[in-house]
């Protein structure tokens, strides 16, 4: 992970960096900061943070299941449940938030996992990588020369 994460200097994160951030760094940090231990923090902010933590962890749980190197029909069903928990929680906590097409698209992923197996065998990242390599080749913008 970039050492200066959060500042403008590090630029955009790559997809795999987002994965590491979401599945390792973020949950540990958020639970440590937002999960109140017994007998402390009964104010509104603490409750709100705990609710946001719950829906965030629903999303991260769905991602972790989706990225599993082996999968089953049950994995896909549990992933669907976590995604629905996340979207319903988002709607409840942020009523004015406008959902994006990707939110809808994500709900179809469990279906594809059931059809084609673990995502690594059919996701588009290898193609994206090739596109990135091609984009870095110097050309004179003249076809065939």
């Amino acid at each position, binding site marked *: 992970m970039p050492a200066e994460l959060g500042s403008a200097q590090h630029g955009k994160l790559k997809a795999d960096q987002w994965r590491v951030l979401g599945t*390792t760094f973020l*949950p*540990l940090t958020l*639970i*440590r900061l937002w*999960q109140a*231990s*017994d007998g402390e923090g009964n104010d509104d902010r603490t409750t709100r943070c705990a609710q946001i933590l719950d829906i965030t*962890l629903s999303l*991260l*749980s769905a991602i*972790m*299941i989706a*990225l*599993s*190197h*082996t999968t*089953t029909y*049950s*994995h896909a069903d*549990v992933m669907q*449940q*976590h995604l629905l928990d996340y979207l319903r929680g988002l709607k409840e906590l942020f009523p004015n938030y406008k959902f994006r097409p990707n939110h809808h698209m994500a709900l179809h992923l469990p279906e594809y996992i059931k059809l084609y197996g673990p995502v690594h065998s059919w996701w588009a990242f290898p193609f994206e990588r090739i596109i990135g390599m091609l984009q870095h080749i110097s050309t004179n913008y003249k076809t065939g020369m």
Partner: protein
Amino acid sequence: MRSSNLRNIFSRHGTPQVVRNCEPIFQRLIHPKSRSTLVSDILQFDHDDNVSTHTDDDFQWTPPKSSTIPDALQKCIQATFEADCEAVSLSHLTVAGRTYSTSTQHMGNSQILLKSGIPGRMIPARIDYITQVTVSGDLVIPYIAARKYQSLDLANDPFQAYPCLQAGLWNEHLGDLGLYPLDAIETHFARLPISWEGQCMMVVISLNRVSPLKHVP
């Protein structure tokens, strides 16, 4: 310093890991054919054509076949195997694309989760030594000597509420050294030292690439 003293540095227990990592450089330094000395000059004329075919690129360092076994590891092996056996100490081992190292070689690669015998429950440990034990004459079996982290008697572990994370709070203190076969290793883990309810402890998060099937409604 005499070259024999340099050779002995690596067979001696207690040599710092940073020096051990430089072993190929030292070997090159003390190898007679790669030194620019009178010996190497004479050696260059030991062929009929008076031209040496040896170049620096030909030099290949071969790791020693014997190494000193630390006392703690030796006791561990003796406690596990009744009969005398031959053992070699290794700094790292790669199995199915995953590299396991001793804690002095690479702290991250030495952090492992051991199977506990209870499904879904794993115990974090630190690899202190890796060894290959020769049993029954020609059967070589690799083992790791690791110390398990001690569990915490905590009523409310906040990470247990999210089982998909495969994370939990553990004591930072290590237990006794034990010898384990490679199939006892589940995966690596990452850890974060934290202070929770006034106590110093660490969060352990599994780096397993296979998700367990759990959901808390």
